[in-house]
């Protein structure tokens, strides 16, 4: 009968699943040379929009930095292509019965990349103790501070054994200990990590690639780590080439200056898709774009004003016009691909009338001769929007110009200020010198928004740069972090979604699909959606196609 097969074969599938679940696999990558039969050699030049401020995994806080540190560093554990936690620098581990103490047995064959003081030194338990101490040191400015507050004690048990004690059992304890290790002895000051430490520009790691140089143009040139513990990566050389202009970035691919663009400009997708030299790889980084409201601004502190901004903006029209509908308007602080997204919360509609009503309710009823609403002191209701564009990003430029125009229609003046990426980060993350800002957040699978919205996360280089403070949100964030019940975590996150959608600390815009464009000569490509290069050691270029790589 036609309806029967689905049910019968399902039973076979279920049995297979049980068999696999019973086999706990902790793979150890002991081979010195990869045994997959693919050739070594070749050069891969990839283009990024913007340059990484730092090249170390402690102070780096952006996606460009995350990707490059994935090439240069490793942690105790990593993730398989199926997102299972697998051994990396640790070869095995034990967890105490109360799920608080994780004891890792380290591999004995891991050497720091050959360079200056660290050259050829073996990675030991001291390095892991030192790295966690470094992260927890109050003088280290790192976005990792909050995630690793959960560590109560890190101890060297022996040269090859390290134990990490958590303050309490947590969900994903093992995955959360996947931090990248750094050789603290190679730092200017081994106790804390300053962003201006020379190590942040000349890092030494254990990863599949090691830094050769950063050229005067800002290219980050990396060589294959010949003694990489998972086997020598196939591709000899990987180069990160930063671009200040998105249009030029795409052109660099089309004119063979690069082999790969990690995140292709939405407007260029059709052109690249039609070019037979390249493959497009869509990947879901659980990301979304937003306008952030600095709540230190007295006008933006009013919820009605923030809600008015959301109602004033026709997000679907912007998405259709500037991204050719290649995305989805969102309603809150999670991406629609996340388990935490609250499907009951609908995006606020485009409703300029409602926006004006809300602004009036907030006390902005008088307009000046120029048509803009006036504040109590008679000045126009005016905000500065900081936009991270150095030279050119046509899509974002259109978005912010449209935003400016939408707000003008409801009587709010917006001044645009375009800033180079590093300067923009200083303004936003350190000096909090902005009224409005636009950017994109990307998350790993944990959907952890605690650093974005908890009131304690407001210092320099912390993620709550908008100074959002809501005791109810704080309480829920703490509860979500401390519970071991994943369904409870989901309920709390969905409640957070509803609360933040109502409170509008950001104007939540949209999720767009990320597309990597990669030259077809690069084979066996497997992309980790968040860290991107996790499996780069398995990529290869056929011998015949290794010549003619971009310079």
């Amino acid at each position, binding site marked *: 009968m036609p309806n029967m097969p689905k049910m019968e074969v399902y039973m076979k599938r279920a049995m297979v699943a049980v068999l696999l679940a019973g086999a706990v696999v902790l793979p150890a990558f002991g081979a010195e040379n990869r045994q997959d039969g693919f050739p070594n050699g070749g050069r891969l030049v990839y283009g990024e929009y913007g340059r990484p401020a730092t090249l170390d995994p402690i102070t780096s806080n952006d996606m460009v930095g995350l990707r490059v540190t994935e090439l240069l560093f490793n942690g105790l554990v990593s993730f398989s292509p199926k997102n299972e936690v697998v051994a990396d620098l640790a070869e095995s581990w034990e967890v105490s019965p109360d799920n608080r103490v994780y004891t890792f047995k380290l591999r004995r064959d891991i050497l720091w990349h050959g360079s200056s003081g660290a050259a050829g030194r073996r990675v030991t338990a001291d390095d892991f103790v030192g790295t966690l101490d470094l992260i927890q040191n109050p003088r280290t400015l790192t976005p990792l501070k909050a995630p690793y507050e959960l560590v109560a004690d890190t101890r060297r048990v022996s040269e090859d054994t390290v134990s990490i004690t958590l303050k309490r059992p947590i969900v994903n304890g093992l995955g959360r200990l996947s931090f990248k290790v750094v050789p603290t002895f190679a730092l200017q000051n081994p106790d804390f990590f300053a962003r201006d430490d020379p190590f942040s520009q000349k890092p030494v790691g254990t990863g599949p690639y090691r830094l050769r140089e950063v050229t005067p143009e800002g290219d980050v040139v990396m060589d294959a780590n010949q003694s990489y513990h998972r086997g020598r990566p196939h591709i000899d050389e990987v180069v990160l080439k930063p671009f200040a202009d998105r249009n030029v970035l795409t052109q660099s691919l089309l004119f063979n200056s690069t082999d790969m663009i990690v995140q292709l400009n939405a407007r260029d997708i059709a052109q690249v898709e039609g070019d037979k030299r390249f493959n497009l790889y869509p990947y879901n980084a659980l990301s979304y774009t937003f306008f952030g409201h600095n709540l230190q601004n007295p006008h933006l502190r009013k919820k009605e004003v923030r809600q008015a901004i959301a109602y004033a903006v026709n997000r679907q029209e912007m998405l259709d016009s500037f991204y050719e509908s290649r995305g989805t308007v969102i309603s809150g602080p999670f991406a629609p691909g996340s388990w935490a997204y609250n499907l009951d919360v609908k995006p606020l509609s485009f409703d300029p009338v409602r926006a004006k009503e809300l602004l009036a309710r907030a006390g902005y009823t008088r307009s000046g001769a120029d048509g803009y609403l006036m504040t109590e002191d008679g000045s126009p209701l005016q905000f500065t929007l900081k936009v991270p564009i150095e030279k050119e990003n046509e899509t974002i430029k259109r978005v912010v110009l449209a935003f400016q125009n939408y707000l003008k229609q409801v009587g709010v003046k917006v001044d645009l200020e375009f800033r180079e990426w590093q300067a923009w980060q200083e303004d936003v993350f350190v000096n909090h010198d902005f009224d409005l800002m636009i950017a*994109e957040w990307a998350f790993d699978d944990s959907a952890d928004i605690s650093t974005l919205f908890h009131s304690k996360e407001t210092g320099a280089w912390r993620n709550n740069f908008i100074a959002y403070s809501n005791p109810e949100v704080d309480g829920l964030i703490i509860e979500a972090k401390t519970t*071991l019940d994943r369904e409870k975590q989901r309920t709390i996150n969905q409640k957070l979604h509803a609360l933040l959608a109502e409170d509008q600390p950001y104007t939540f815009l949209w999720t767009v699909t990320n597309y990597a464009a990669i030259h077809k000569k690069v084979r066996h490509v497997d992309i980790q959606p968040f860290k991107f290069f996790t499996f780069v050691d398995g990529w290869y270029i056929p011998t015949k196609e290794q010549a003619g790589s971009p310079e």
Partner: protein
Amino acid sequence: MRIATTTLVCVLLLLERFATAAEPDLAGARELFRQNRWAEAREAIASKMGSLSPADRDQARFLLGLSHVREAELYRALSFLSTDVGLAYMKELALSKERRALPWLPLFRGFYQLDAGRYEEAESALSEAALSKSLTAEWKNLASARRDVARSLKGRRPSAIVEAEVEGVDLDVPDVEDASDPKKILRFFDPLRLETLERRAWKSALSELSPLAQEGQGMANKLGRYYAGYAHFFLGETAEAASVLEPIDLPALGPDYHARARVIKAASSEPEDLAALWESTRNYPEAVLLWNELTPGEPVATTLSERLKALPQSFRESADETMVGRWGLAALSRGPLWLESKEVVVVLSRHRNHANKNKIEWNDPLLLVALAAANYSNNDYPQALETLFELAKSFEGLRGLQWNLQGVYAARQKAAGDARIAN
């Protein structure tokens, strides 16, 4: 860039050749159909139906029937995925240390087991639910009724069809919301909702196609009969399927349709020479996929498996996306030992419009569901959820599947808790 094309659209063009000049008003409906906006296409036709010529009315009716066929196939695919995900979610809930005694678990686990054809387990779980002290009489009665269905199916005895209430119901609202702990709200959705939506769509297809099969002229009559037979086949009404196909001059439909119709007819009565029928139809991919629905024994089973595995080699870039999606679901249902879900993703992705990867206007919805199922099997939960998020904008009844998939993802994710800014 290519927009979604299907052989069904080609069928429409074929039909048009045999009809009088098409009424211009139908062009809009055809365009909506081509964009996979089936409900809108139906609305467009309904508003013009009275003013159409008899030949154009046949075309319009055929289009209506096909739109329901497409929708039925979509819900069938969603139901397949929903069963898999639902069982996984029930398992994750059962593994949770915090709520082992949750009274709803046996009930809904039984529902999903019944849906999956695991009748013995379903009978056991539903028996437990029927005796539960925590459930209301209404739920216990439902548990008893479904337990009886499981029992009868276990013995392969004919059973009454059970359906869920879907008319006039907000399908985003769960059947049960357990908020006994306000910090942990659990929702349960009856998997029968999707199956009921599927059955409803097949019946709607029949109500449009049957008149064509009886009174339609020429090609409209033949195609009407074929798809009416197809609908009966998937409703499990194999005798009716054979009956409606019987009078057609099958070769006149072309070799592909001829092969398909012969396979459908074979479902009602075991043909004398099954091997010969297989040999004469195995070169037609759509027919092979229908063979797969029949799960024939040897000597066909082994060669069917081989042929099915080799099918993607014959899929050209312009291959019918619905068929590719059907192949994907067939491959997934055979399990990872037959073909890794990653391989299925690779094959299906070749037929996806990457630039508009989740949009139904650019991708066949069934292909998207197959991709979501393959992504799910490959632990790529965000991609599966994102696809369903887009589909849910156009099709009702997906919320339960989305909820369960979110639950599986929440339970299985192992990430570190990282968030990064990007420009």
